[in-house]
């Protein structure tokens, strides 16, 4: 039994954590535990000695027990094989906690103040253990616990209930194994409804081309030899002319149809790829920030680019060609059987083996090509890394090292390339040979049949009579069947790729943004700007909390500074206020209305953030500032830039506000970028302004100058400021100090200094460092 099957065997139910799996009842009984006594039970999956198993950790009566063992299939059915049992007195225990190890997690507790080991589990069960630890602490502390208050531990279904396979996206709940492939194709095809007529035309063109290809051998073979050249007398020249004209006509038709197919395909390809890229991009674009910061980002660019091409390929090339080649193979086979069944059997007998071998070879080829592709990407990544960091390379004389690094990647890429090419060179002649074996068979069998007929006429019977013309026609058909077969084998592999790409497309189209706007979201007519955090808790990864029970209230129009050590959760507070993420506990209110009830439009209009990471898009200075409000006039943009202290450096740029900045254009310093970012925020004219280390990259003189402007701008607006440089916060009415995930102090700077808490500590450190460089407090 694999770990995955165990996983579905017993799931910790947050609302009913006392449930005991039937399989362990005999083991419990053996240790004097009555099932009714169990008040809280969780399963871990690592036995002592690190083997997968089923460890049950539970409270029963006054005892806390750890039962280790494994469910195993025995002759008498599935049984629980116990390995060990430990029990503790519940009253001696406290401090249950889950500790993260590099690859697993560990549940520990304290017994009479001393740390004890409870069990280990894979990280998949981390959330279960964390909830269990919370309940256990309540139980040992208060004597009782409330299972899942308000259903806040809503578990995401991570695995397909049908097959146990993990969902690529738990929100979309699409199981790649159970999902019907036809359904994927149908849904993707629905996107191209508007192109149906053109796709049908392409299919018609292909069929016409295919028909011409099928007729051609007949005209230049049996018809020419048997029906025209064998006749003598006057009609001979007329028939010959007709035959030649028919051959020319089929060729011309074939060329015309092929060219029509080419034109139609090219146009459709462009339109379909455009639509697909747009669909994929807009699907991704609507998702929440967490989607982009999670594991998914790696392949996003590739996804937009490659998947569009692969999907288009399927509908434009693979599918019509499948239909055409399928029909062609069928038609040719029927014709071959009609011409001569014995010869047809000789030709067909090698085909299944040839197709099988071809599919295997293509599979291997696919692996080699993937390898070449990944090494090429790795080489490009190394190159871009090197060129991007050329200043560092030069500064540390790393040219030689980089040359070696590049050399290794280059060699890897060359060898992958060589392997793929060598394989192609080896396999294709072999494949052709196998395929051509059919022709050899036909030659051999056909030759024997003609000789037999020549020596003993009538020996083979009426249906077996074979002429040279028939054999020539037959051989043309045999050669015609190989190309579609090759294409068929290749198409089978391409289909897998295309179906995967379609699956990804549907997955992304169905993915739900974590932060959603309510259907009946409110758009307040005028915001005052009062901000309230009510017992807010948050974690980026389940179980690892960043904020716990954070509560404070900022009156409209006030300026509040947020202080704390690095990693205290200050920026997270701001992410929550701008609804980049939603709190996992508690709520945030603006003017007494829950943030979740307010429309995105209201939030974006009324809250502006200047974050520590400023990003400039490729475009002019004007475009970048106007990103905040595209309808702003040049005058408004300039006003904002003057207020942000950006006008001075902008006017030094060659084209002023029309200077191109961003990637590949004029490079701005960190402080200049920050000033543009402040200008963006000012242009929004928000009721709530968030300044997250907004002036950290500026020199003191510039910072002071901008702060004077900002002070004027901040009048009548609620402002939340984060800064490590405490002098930056001197304009704040009040300070909130964050420590250990909570608000630990609050008050005016003077009060906090008097209280001699954490703020005082930080303040003292900064004053001391100033003294060290000869600046006194009075200065």
């Amino acid at each position, binding site marked *: 039994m694999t770990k995955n099957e165990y996983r579905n065997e017993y799931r910790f139910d947050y609302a009913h954590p006392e449930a005991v799996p039937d399989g362990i009842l005999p083991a419990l009984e053996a240790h004097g535990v009555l099932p009714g006594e169990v008040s809280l039970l969780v399963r871990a999956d690592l036995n002592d000695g690190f083997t997968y198993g089923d460890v049950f950790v539970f409270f029963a009566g006054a005892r806390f027990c750890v039962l280790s063992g494994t469910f195993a299939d025995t002759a008498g059915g599935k049984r629980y094989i116990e390995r060990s049992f430990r029990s503790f007195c519940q009253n001696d225990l406290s401090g249950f906690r889950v500790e993260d190890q*590099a690859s697993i997690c560990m549940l520990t507790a304290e017994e009479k103040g001393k740390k004890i080991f409870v069990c280990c589990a*894979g*990280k998949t069960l981390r959330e279960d253990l964390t909830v269990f630890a919370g309940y256990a602490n309540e139980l040992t502390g208060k004597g009782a616990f409330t299972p899942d208050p308000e259903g806040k531990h809503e578990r995401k279904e991570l695995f397909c209930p049908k097959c146990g396979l993990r969902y690529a996206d738990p929100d979309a709940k699409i199981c790649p194994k159970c999902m019907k492939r036809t359904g994927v194709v149908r849904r993707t095809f629905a996107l191209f409804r508007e192109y149906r007529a053109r796709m049908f035309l392409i299919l018609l063109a292909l069929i016409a081309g295919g028909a011409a290809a099928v007729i051609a051998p007949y005209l230049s073979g049996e018809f020419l030899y048997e029906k025209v050249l064998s006749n003598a007398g006057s009609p001979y020249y007329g028939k010959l002319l007709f035959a030649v004209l028919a051959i020319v006509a089929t060729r011309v038709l074939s060329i015309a149809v092929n060219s029509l197919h080419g034109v139609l395909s090219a146009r459709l390809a462009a339109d379909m790829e455009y639509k697909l890229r747009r669909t994929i991009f807009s699907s991704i674009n609507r998702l929440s920030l967490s989607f982009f910061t999670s594991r998914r980002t790696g392949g996003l660019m590739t996804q937009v680019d490659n998947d569009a091409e692969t999907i288009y390929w399927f509908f434009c090339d693979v599918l019509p060609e499948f239909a055409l080649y399928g029909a062609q193979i069928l038609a040719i086979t029927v014709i071959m059987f009609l011409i001569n069944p014995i010869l047809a059997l000789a030709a067909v007998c090698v085909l299944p083996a040839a197709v099988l071998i071809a599919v295997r070879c293509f599979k291997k080829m696919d*692996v080699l090509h993937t390898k070449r592709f990944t090494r090429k990407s790795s080489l490009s990544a190394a190159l871009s890394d090197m060129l991007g960091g050329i200043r560092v390379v030069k500064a540390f004389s790393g040219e030689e090292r980089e040359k070696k690094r590049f050399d290794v990647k280059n060699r890897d890429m060359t060898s992958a390339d060589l392997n793929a090419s060598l394989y192609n060179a080896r396999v294709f002649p072999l494949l052709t040979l196998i395929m051509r074996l059919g022709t050899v068979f036909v030659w051999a069998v056909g030759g024997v049949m003609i000789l037999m007929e020549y020596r003993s006429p009538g020996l083979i019977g009426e249906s077996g009579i074979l002429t040279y013309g028939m054999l020539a026609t037959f051989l043309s058909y045999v050669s015609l069947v190989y190309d579609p077969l090759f294409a068929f084998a290749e198409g089978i592999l391409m289909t897998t790729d295309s179906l995967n790409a379609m699956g*990804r497309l549907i997955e992304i189209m169905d993915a739900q943004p974590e932060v959603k706007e309510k259907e009946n979201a409110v758009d307040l007519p005028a915001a005052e700007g009062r901000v309230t955090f009510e017992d807010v808790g948050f974690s980026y990864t389940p179980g690892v909390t960043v904020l716990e029970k954070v509560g404070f209230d900022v009156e409209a129009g006030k300026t509040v500074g947020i202080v704390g050590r690095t990693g205290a959760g200050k920026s997270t507070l701001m992410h929550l206020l701008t609804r980049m993420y939603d709190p996992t506990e508690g709520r945030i209110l603006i003017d007494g209305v829950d943030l979740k009830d307010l429309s995105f439009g209201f939030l974006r209009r009324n809250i502006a953030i200047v974050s520590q990471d400023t990003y400039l898009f490729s475009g002019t200075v004007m475009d970048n500032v106007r990103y905040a409000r595209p309808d702003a006039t040049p005058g408004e943009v300039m006003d904002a830039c003057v207020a942000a202290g950006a006008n001075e450096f902008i006017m030094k740029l060659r084209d002023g506000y029309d200077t191109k900045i961003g990637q590949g254009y004029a490079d701005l310093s960190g402080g200049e970028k920050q000033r543009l970012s402040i200008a963006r925020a000012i242009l929004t004219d928000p009721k709530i302004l968030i300044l997250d280390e907004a002036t950290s990259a500026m020199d003191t003189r510039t910072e002071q100058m901008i702060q004077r402007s900002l002070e004027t701008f901040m009048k009548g607006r609620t402002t939340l400021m984060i800064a490590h440089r405490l002098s930056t916060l001197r304009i704040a009415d009040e300070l909130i100090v964050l420590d250990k995930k909570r608000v630990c102090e609050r008050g005016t700077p003077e009060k906090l200094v008097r209280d001699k808490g954490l703020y005082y500590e930080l303040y003292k450190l900064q004053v001391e460092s100033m003294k060290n460089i000869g600046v006194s407090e009075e200065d």
Partner: protein
Amino acid sequence: MNNNGFYEIAGLTLFEPSNSVIRGENGFPVLFTKSKEGEKRVGVVEAKRAFPFECENEYIVLEDGEGRDLGVIRDLAARSESERAVLGACLERRYYMPKIRGLYKVSDKFGFCYFKASTDAGDVEFSVHDPYKSIVLLGRRMILTDADGNRFEIPDVDALPKKDRKKIEQFLY
């Protein structure tokens, strides 16, 4: 340059047998500092490798229950056998990764890579997202991190049976 001074500024102690002793308590390491006045119990500590892939028994950082770094043991070999045993157990747990012995199946679907493998801990199924990021090759050692953060290792990809190695060929670059 006296590097030890930097440790002092950072509030870290370089733990030597002369200034510290580690004892086991319920299987967890407990740090005691030694001075002229005698031993002083600091508390239960957690041991971490500063270079988990490069140096398994050197540069071991000790942190307290609150996650604060207390100091560094530069070389475990300098410690007594009992100290090595208790710290070793702690490190083994922290860096435990099931070792993959064979691969039953590796399939790629929707950008997820599904593995069915046999490990020294038993048979396992896991899924890796974004394989080219989550599968790391350190020389011939392969570390695979699944969608939940569980890690598995193939100590030597060349030692895998040939048919199994073929299944992960695309990640061997």
